[in-house]
């Protein structure tokens, strides 16, 4: 393992400190329990809190700021944060209209946030993101993971919350965006958790993992490495089938296409993937009118990518386009 780190146990705190320092105009960091909030506490709005294991940067702390999150609770690398973090964060950002938790659907995250919510002295609601369509033949929503689509949910719900909308309205929009969003990832290499010191999985020079999770969880299948177009074709197919299974018609719809890097994939390749994916989706009658290409939900140092398609409607479009000012997403201000 070759990483820019000092002691393995200090990675998280040192990285969080660097983040807070680099963005001291935007955020404040609290250590022990660890949580990050907006520098300027918002007032009279639903407070949006997200969180999860670390190692997916810029998720979630990079999305704290006007128009998006109020706070984020970073766990250890790939490990859900704990209820005390969520309670302290909620205490810090609560602004009279309740707390909305946006949680990626993993058993650990769900249970920890649930336990926090149960003892929270404020009204709260939860949006569970579950956009990863890698997992097929499973009737258990527990098996469906939240991945890069979470960024779109956080952006849209964050936008709505700024308007003063109430908790239920924020939750409803979040659930809708999640429902209309589907993702799939592919890995060329494993990631290496600092504390583990070696790659999470072995993968040879001519293999890829189709449907990989953002923690290096195995996906649909191990496949032979092939041309980008062929890989992207399968990913697009998986997403289209997922929308069909959800009974969401895709032809003649507008969509947002997010081509996400998992950490070690060069932007040059991400744009090449975007080129292939956008063409394939449009061949299926989908009009890509919004795009995002870059490292938005990573898996440490994994070489890989994920595609996320979000079917737009006027409401989602409006909230996607509205101003945002976070460390990792900024426009309109």
């Amino acid at each position, binding site marked *: 393992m070759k990483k820019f780190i000092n002691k393995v146990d200090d990675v998280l705190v040192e990285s969080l400190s660097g983040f807070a320092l680099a963005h001291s105009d935007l955020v404040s960091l609290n250590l022990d329990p660890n949580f990050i909030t907006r520098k300027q506490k918002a007032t009279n709005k639903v407070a949006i809190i997200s969180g999860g294991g670390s190692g997916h940067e810029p998720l979630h702390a990079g999305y704290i700021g006007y128009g998006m999150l109020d706070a984020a609770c970073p766990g250890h690398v790939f*490990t859900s944060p704990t209820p005390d973090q969520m309670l302290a964060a909620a205490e810090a950002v609560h602004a009279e209209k309740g707390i909305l938790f946006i949680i990626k659907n993993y058993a*650990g995250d769900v249970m920890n946030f649930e336990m926090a919510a149960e003892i929270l002295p404020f009204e709260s609601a939860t949006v569970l993101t579950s956009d990863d369509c890698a997992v097929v033949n499973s009737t258990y929503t527990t098996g469906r993971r939240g991945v890069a689509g979470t960024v779109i949910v956080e952006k849209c719900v964050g936008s709505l919350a700024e308007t003063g909308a109430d908790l239920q309205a924020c939750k409803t929009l979040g659930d809708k965006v999640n429902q209309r969003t589907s993702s799939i990832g592919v890995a060329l290499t494993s990631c290496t958790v600092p504390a583990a010191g070696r790659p999470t999985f072995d993968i040879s020079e001519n293999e890829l993992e189709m449907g990989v999770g953002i923690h290096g*969880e195995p996906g649909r299948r191990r496949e032979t490495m092939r041309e980008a177009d062929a890989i992207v074709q399968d990913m697009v197919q998986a997403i289209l089938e997922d929308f069909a299974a959800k009974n969401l018609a895709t032809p003649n719809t507008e969509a947002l296409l997010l081509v996400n890097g998992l950490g070690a994939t060069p932007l040059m390749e991400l744009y090449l993937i975007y080129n292939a994916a956008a063409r394939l989706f449009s061949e299926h009658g989908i009009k890509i009118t919004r795009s995002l290409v870059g490292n938005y939900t990573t898996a440490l140092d994994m070489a890989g990518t994920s595609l996320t398609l979000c079917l737009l409607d006027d409401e989602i479009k409006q909230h996607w386009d509205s101003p945002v000012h976070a460390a990792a997403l900024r426009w309109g201000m």
Partner: protein
Amino acid sequence: MNSSFIVTATTAIQNTILQHESELESLDRAIGDGDHYINMKRGAQTIVEMQQELATLAPDVALNKIGMKLLSTIGGASGPLLASFFMGMAKIIKEKGDTSTATYASAFSAGVDTIRQRGKADIGEKTMLDVLIPVATQFTAMAAQNASPKEISTALKKTAEQGMLSTKDLIATKGRAAGLGERAIGHIDPGAKSCQLMIEAVCNLIE
């Protein structure tokens, strides 16, 4: 069970976790995200650091404290589940107020039930419950039959081992491996393994 037993048990648990580093790591690497050993190590470490304080507390208070501490230390799926176990157990011991084997058996069962409720899972889903549920059932039955601590511990170790091994051929329907379908087959569930190890370590103290 008194608090000094709890203290001894925390050391035994830490030892067995540390001794099985590579096994626990490989299991979670194969069908999870590779952090189960790290999570368990972190949890055990924190509890061992509390030993001085734990020794001064009543058993139910100590167990509850352990649960609270695990909750804010482990994270992941195993954190709230193990925390639930200790808090569920503490509640029964406090209620019953005695130190009979039957009380411990029903406390253990209550702990397992709390896990079940928290995780919305049951036996056969390739989780730690495949170890914990059979062990709880047998513990309760043997306590009712007034079996000796020694007999009980010998039996529970075996049951735990069987439960752990049973996860190997299962498809996971809860937890991180739930996405794997057929690919999970052939791998033992890491949480089941660590629970089996902890049960074994504690049973070994009762000879």
